[in-house]
């Protein structure tokens, strides 16, 4: 039921544009129980440096293979270390952590799920979109990025029958503009929206989705990742929620951004 501390072996790695990297991790206990929207808390570096673990969303859940995937964006020392590890490297991970997305497709035969993501924010949506699509839901993804190479995992999602619309800020691929502009057009058909991206984007998504159920995957600085330190607070109507334990997925209406 709960999380484990386990050793995950890097089974494959591929370099994606703009310093992103996709890691396959052999971690059967995690893969067996992970739900879309959950995350791993990964020890990056050796011998106590950096001090704290780093949280990464599960960008792929493959229970049959005993594998999960992480999509990592290099932004600092922890991610630089992680992204440079070779296949075969053993990682110390805690997981699966967090609540995960709601999965109405397990009960309802039909529905229209729309994902909205900016950049690496696509990571937590991937397993949710794939699962919903597999159960027969209509699934779309609106993906925005700075430029064409920043549109990650698009081919993979399209290959799984997901209707991906893209836009780039520089117009180098898809429409030029922000992903929220696409949302204005595509929202009417959707019964459920999942979004992940910068707070500015999420605020606009929230304003636009007052009439439809909408969930966000949030990020906050974490220490423990398991609800023990109370470090990852995010403000809600009534006090603070913990992103690591009560989230990272929250109803768009319950959190302040």
């Amino acid at each position, binding site marked *: 039921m*709960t999380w*484990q*501390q386990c050793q995950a072996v890097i089974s494959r790695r591929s370099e994606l544009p703009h310093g992103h990297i996709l890691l396959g991790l052999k971690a059967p206990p995690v893969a067996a129980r992970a739900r879309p929207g959950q995350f791993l808390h990964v*020890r990056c570096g050796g011998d*106590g*440096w*950096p*001090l*704290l*673990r780093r949280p990464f969303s599960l960008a792929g859940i493959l229970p049959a293979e005993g594998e999960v995937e992480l999509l990592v964006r290099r932004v600092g020392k922890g991610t630089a270390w992680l992204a440079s590890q070779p296949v075969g490297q053993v990682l110390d991970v*805690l997981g699966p952590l967090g609540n995960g997305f709601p999965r109405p497709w397990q009960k309802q035969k039909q529905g229209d799920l729309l994902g909205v993501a900016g950049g690496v924010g696509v990571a937590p949506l991937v397993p949710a979109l794939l699962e919903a699509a597999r159960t027969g839901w209509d699934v779309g993804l609106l993906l925005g990025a700075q430029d064409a190479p920043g549109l990650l995992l698009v081919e993979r999602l399209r290959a799984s029958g997901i209707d991906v619309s893209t836009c780039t800020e520089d117009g180098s691929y898809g429409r030029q503009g922000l992903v929220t502009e696409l949302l204005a057009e595509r929202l009417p058909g959707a019964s459920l929206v999942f979004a992940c991206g910068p707070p500015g984007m999420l605020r606009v998504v929230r304003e636009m989705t007052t009439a439809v159920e909408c969930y966000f995957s949030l990020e*906050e*600085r*974490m*220490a*423990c*990742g*398991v*609800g*023990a*330190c*109370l*470090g*990852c*607070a*995010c*403000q809600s109507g009534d*006090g*603070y929620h913990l992103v690591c334990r009560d989230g990272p997925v929250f109803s768009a209406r319950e959190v302040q951004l």
Partner: protein
Amino acid sequence: MIDLTVDIGRLRLKNPVLTASGTCGYGREYAHILDLNQLGGIMVKGTSLVPWAGNPAPRVVETPAGMLNAIGLQNPGLDYFLHTELPWLRQFDTAVVVNIAAHQIEEYAELARRLDNAAGVAALEVNISCPNVRQGGLSFGSDPLTAHRVTAAVRQATSLPVIVKLTPNVTDIAALARAVAEAGADAVSLINTLLGMVIDVRARRPALGNIVGGLSGPAIRPVAVRMVWEVAGAVSIPVIGMGGITCAEDALQFLMAGASAVAIGTATFANPRAPFEVMKGMAAFLQEEGFTAVSDIIGLARRGIA
């Protein structure tokens, strides 16, 4: 077999390793992976009379070999603790030390009174680093007189062992320790976090919502060991040492400096089994070096010096 028991005044611990307050919640989060029965004790999250909401985000930021936290003592309050957390904790054969937090002396006393008869509480740890509302937010722990008053009030209100937790943000921590010892503390614990801050230079503002926070982790260990050394030389009541302990060797530094027990805080975030590993490693060290009881090494590094 190494004898790992230590006495913190009237409180006997099965071994000298505890979890530090605020880093292990009320024990639930790690209980499935860290057997609390194996530990000397658990010092629970700072608990106040009524629930406290805590500080705005971000509440934590990493620093070199350390972290800052500004949780703001978010906690569900004493009633919740007594009705929900304490009964759950009673299943474990370990010392439950309740860390109490307050903004006024009477609140500390009231907490002590209400915890006095609570079954399953082994001792109180009085967090005197809290801001004193009557003194414009200055910490109770920064002035020996105020620290003495808080301790005396708690002492009067309970028959439980009273451990006073000292703040390192002072000129003379030995003077503080003497003051609380005189006021009747059974033991002192130290160190709480060092006040620090980080500025996010791209955002051009402090990285923490609360501006300043408490520095913990290996970075502060040399300061903590030095303060334990000073305090152990200044008072005759037992000392519980903490601050940046990650492994047995770190913990042994505190014991050899004069601490009778240690607590593990920040290290647990990176390695949830750290408290257990410290305890095991300590026993292995004692064995290797030919000691038969952990009490033999308390203050060992002071021999011939102080």
